[in-house]
């Protein structure tokens, strides 16, 4: 039997998905697949198009290669457009004059950007955003522009604005509607999104109808709006929506929708039974689906229909039933999600709104009249609950408890309302990009998959937009646990233990070297994850000099040379300034060293002074001078105790009730040098005005009329967390005792690189449990914890002092072991009276000069 010929017009995301489905199916050998692409390349990932601006190349975005199509026996013709269909004779014609016959024809021609008919829209720097060629044009234009305007404040428009912003342009978004993302968001959501985007420096202009584009005065163009206002810009990017590419169907008599789009039935057949349309060009139930997931679903249905009508002659097994258009995205760094009926158009729908102006979070839930089912949602600023909400809606599940609880932040001890993955039916679609259900993932796990990598290979779940990753992982882990397989929490490929388990092993067995631990509990040669982890555990329990021969290979980037490595390979120097208190003499000593070595000098955020730009060979001499002046290492390089910030307190301040500086100095002296799972920061304030910001620290102490209040597990940085009040009105001794215990319990049980804030959040039983362990000695380990701390306190040494007294160790503080030269790659320029590393551009300029000399 001769092969059946299938021609696919358009090799975009959906056309390719269709081809791939058939070419890798059992029927591949009975089919001849031919695809035409108008673009000069095969399919690429349009969804990730914006990554092109952050460095992804056309190859990175490619969904396939010519070699892969060759292997699969797929015929492809690129840079040739199909211009004619002869449905009676079942042939197509291309722009280059090629004529090919088909048994079945699939139109996957996608869509094109709509450019409103504004006079002046066809000028050089008026562009669109759809193909790789478009992006090349945008790049070229951005390079010669200062200001850019995106016309259209929808999903794509905001993505385009992000690209212009990243290219360094003064960026504006001009929207016709009264709010951004009008299709997906309600008024409240749109307002918050606008506020967030404006605070990122993108100007938003709503309700602007562009009348014409004329020559500008300040910039290349001026856009005149209907309301008489105008905006000047050097380039314009149109993102005012898409239109189905239905030109072929229009010319050759296939049924179209009123506003365009090729009409299809549930099997994706057009008005000619041998011609199908899939993806963004197709109109089903009067709807166009502008997302890939529904397109992929159509591709599946069409493949099934073609195989069954052409080859097996059986009933088709699938039908297209519409698709959910819920989306979750990060636009200009802002999390946004829209689910189902976001506008509450359903009859009788009720809504719940949660809005927090401080945290900039807006959430709205639309529920059915009886309050039992979720029918829509809008989330801006916090989309963590997207997965849960989407599943509730898609699976028509009853809302557990009070609907409001779904969007309210967790208060106090209350557990946040989640939806255990076990509650989901097997048919629940977890990954919509690739239509992967919970059952598919469970099946893959039963088939032997046990990592996210395996699952991605086996099911493709989470390889599209990535929005489903968290849920996929939960389903996988739940299934693994149900099978009795222990979920892999291994530290790395060398140790099948968590950091907490390794800490227990080291403590109980009293190990003192990496080799012993590797021999008894690990395999291989170690890596940059397990070595520093074990190095840190050993330091927490043994507190030996970290550059001892057997410990040195375990030390991370900064610890191994006792300084923070900077971007050019030089180091910074931070002497300890306990409590932020420093004598003028010490200040002068620091200043003199900085001057002698021409070090860039800055006051840090931790109340001390950082000197940058020292080369390896300079470190020992610099530290010798500092130590001679009575200073000590500040361990800014270690995962260890950093600073204890203080306020001036009762000694000078008219409000101070206790001597906060003395307490801060005492605390810093006690815990200095202590290495821990992550860095530790403390602060002591002299009264409740809290000038030392103690409530943002791992350990915070605040003076009251009746004693010290102790706060624990606060965090600044990436995810700020207010510290929790742990105990009140403590005397000095009890305060220190509690801190000792909290810290050593943290050392014992925390994960690698887990700050105390995250540790507490993950500690079963939370704050109450921690209080029980530390205050009531629930586990009976308090005296052990105190002994461990006593050992650390009594074995402190200034690592730099030990190092400069040890000639063997000093040998390593040279750029070359076998020569006295310096690194010839270092290049500096002066700015505001100080030295800093040259930028990439400056380097080129500076090197050219040297060559010319």
């Amino acid at each position, binding site marked *: 039997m001769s092969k059946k010929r299938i021609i696919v017009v358009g090799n975009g995301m959906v056309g390719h998905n269709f081809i791939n489905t058939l070419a890798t199916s059992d029927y591949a050998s009975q089919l001849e697949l031919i695809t035409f692409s108008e673009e000069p390349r095969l399919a690429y990932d349009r969804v990730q198009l914006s990554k092109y601006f952050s460095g992804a190349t056309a190859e990175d975005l490619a969904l396939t290669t010519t070699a892969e199509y060759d292997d699969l026996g797929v015929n492809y013709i690129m840079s040739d457009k199909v211009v004619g269909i002869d449905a009676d004779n079942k042939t197509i014609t291309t722009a280059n004059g090629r004529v090919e016959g088909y048994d079945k024809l699939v139109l996957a021609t996608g869509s094109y950007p709509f450019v409103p008919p504004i006079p002046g829209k066809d000028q050089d720097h008026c562009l669109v955003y759809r193909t790789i060629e478009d992006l090349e044009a945008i790049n070229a234009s951005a390079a010669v522009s200062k200001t850019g305007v995106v016309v259209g404040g929808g999903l794509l428009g905001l993505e385009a604005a992000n690209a212009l912003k990243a290219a360094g342009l003064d960026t504006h978004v001009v929207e016709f509607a009264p709010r951004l993302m009008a299709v997906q968001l309600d008024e409240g959501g749109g307002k918050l999104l606008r506020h967030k985007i404006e605070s990122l420096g993108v100007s938003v202009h709503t309700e602007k109808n562009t009348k014409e584009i004329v020559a500008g005065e300040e910039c290349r163009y001026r856009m005149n709006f209907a309301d008489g206002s105008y905006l000047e810009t050097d380039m314009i990017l149109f993102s005012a929506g898409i239109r189905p590419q239905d030109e072929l169907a229009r010319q050759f008599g296939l049924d179209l929708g009123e506003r365009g789009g090729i009409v299809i039935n549930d099997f994706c057949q057009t008005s000619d039974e041998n011609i199908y349309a899939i993806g963004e060009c197709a109109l089903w139930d009067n709807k166009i689906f502008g997302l890939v997931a529904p397109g992929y679903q159509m591709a599946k249905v069409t493949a099934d229909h073609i195989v069954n009508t052409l080859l097996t002659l059986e009933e088709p097994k699938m039908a297209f039933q519409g698709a959910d258009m819920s989306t979750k995205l990060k636009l200009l760094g802002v999390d946004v999600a829209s689910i189902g009926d976001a506008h509450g158009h359903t009859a009788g729908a009720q809504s719940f709104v949660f809005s927090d102006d401080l945290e900039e979070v807006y959430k709205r839930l639309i529920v059915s009249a009886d309050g039992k089912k979720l029918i829509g949602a809008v989330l801006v600023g916090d989309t963590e609950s997207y997965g849960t909400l989407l599943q509730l809606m898609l699976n028509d599940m009853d809302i557990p408890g009070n609907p409001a609880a779904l969007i309210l932040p967790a208060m106090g001890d209350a557990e946040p309302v989640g939806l255990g993955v076990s509650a989901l039916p097997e048919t629940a679609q977890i990954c919509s990009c690739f239509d992967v259900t919970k059952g598919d993932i469970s099946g893959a796990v039963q088939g032997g998959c046990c990592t996210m990598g395996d699952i991605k290979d086996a099911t493709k779940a989470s390889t599209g937009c990535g929005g489903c990753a968290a849920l996929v992982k939960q389903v996988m882990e739940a299934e693994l646990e149900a099978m009795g397989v222990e979920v892999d929490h291994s530290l790395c*490929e*060398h140790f099948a233990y968590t950091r907490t388990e390794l800490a227990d092993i080291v403590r109980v067995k009293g190990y003192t070297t990496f080799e012993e631990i590797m021999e008894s509990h690990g395999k*291989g*040669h*170690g*890596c*940059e994850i*397990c*070595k*520093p982890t074990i190095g840190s555990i050993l330091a927490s329990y043994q507190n030996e000099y970290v550059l001892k*021969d057997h410990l*040195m*290979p*375990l030390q*991370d*980037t900064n610890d*191994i*040379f006792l300084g923070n*490595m900077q*971007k*050019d*390979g030089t180091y910074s120097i931070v002497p300890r300034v306990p409590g932020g208190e420093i004598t003028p003499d010490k200040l002068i000593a620091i200043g003199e060293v900085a001057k002698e070595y021409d070090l860039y000098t800055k006051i840090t955020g931790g109340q001390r002074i950082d000197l940058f730009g020292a080369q390896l060979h300079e470190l020992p001499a610099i530290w010798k001078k500092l130590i001679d002046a009575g200073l000590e290492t500040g361990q800014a390089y270690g995962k260890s105790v950093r600073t204890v910030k203080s306020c001036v307190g009762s000694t000078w301040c008219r409000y101070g009730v206790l001597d906060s500086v003395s307490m801060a100095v005492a605390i810093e002296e006690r815990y200095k040098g202590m290495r821990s799972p992550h860095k530790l920061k403390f602060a002591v304030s002299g009264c409740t005005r809290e000038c030392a910001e103690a409530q943002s620290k791992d350990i915070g102490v605040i003076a009251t009329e009746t004693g010290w209040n102790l706060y624990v597990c606060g965090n600044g940085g990436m995810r700020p967390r207010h510290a929790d009040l742990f105990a009140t009105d403590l005397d000095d001794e009890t305060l220190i005792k509690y801190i000792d215990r909290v810290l050593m319990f943290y050392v014992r049980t925390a994960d690698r690189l887990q700050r105390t804030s995250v540790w507490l959040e993950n500690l079963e039983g939370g704050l109450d449990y921690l209080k029980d362990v530390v205050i009531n000695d629930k586990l009976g380990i308090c005296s052990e914890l105190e002994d461990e701390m006593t050992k650390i306190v009594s074995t402190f040494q200034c690592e730099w002092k030990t190092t400069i007294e040890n000639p063997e160790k000093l*040998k*390593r503080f040279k*750029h*070359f*072991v*076998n*020569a006295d*030269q310096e*690194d010839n*790659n270092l290049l500096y320029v002066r700015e505001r009276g100080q030295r800093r590393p040259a930028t990439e551009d400056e380097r080129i300029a500076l090197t050219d000069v040297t060559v010319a000399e």
Partner: protein
Amino acid sequence: MTNWTSVCPLTDLTPDTGVCALVGGKQVAVFRYGAGETVYAISNYDPFGKANVLSRGIVGSIGERPVVASPLYKQHFDLSSGECLEDADKAIESFAVRIENGVVEVAASA
């Protein structure tokens, strides 16, 4: 004929650490792998961080391959070939290395 440049006595190389040597005008990172006589030499230049720092990275293994992790952004380089495990396009030069009379020596070209 190969030109060998002396780096340092093997005993100056702490097991599982590296040093940087100047070999024929090039910056070469020389590593001692384990406590024995296994030594490797690759370029000292980190093509990601664009700085001469690889000799200061942590030595270990990925699967069977001996590697160093860059101290800047932690990409892995195969000590025996200079191959980058994360990005095949970013391979770096590797050098022949030997121990003669207890002294580590590197050849300027492999």
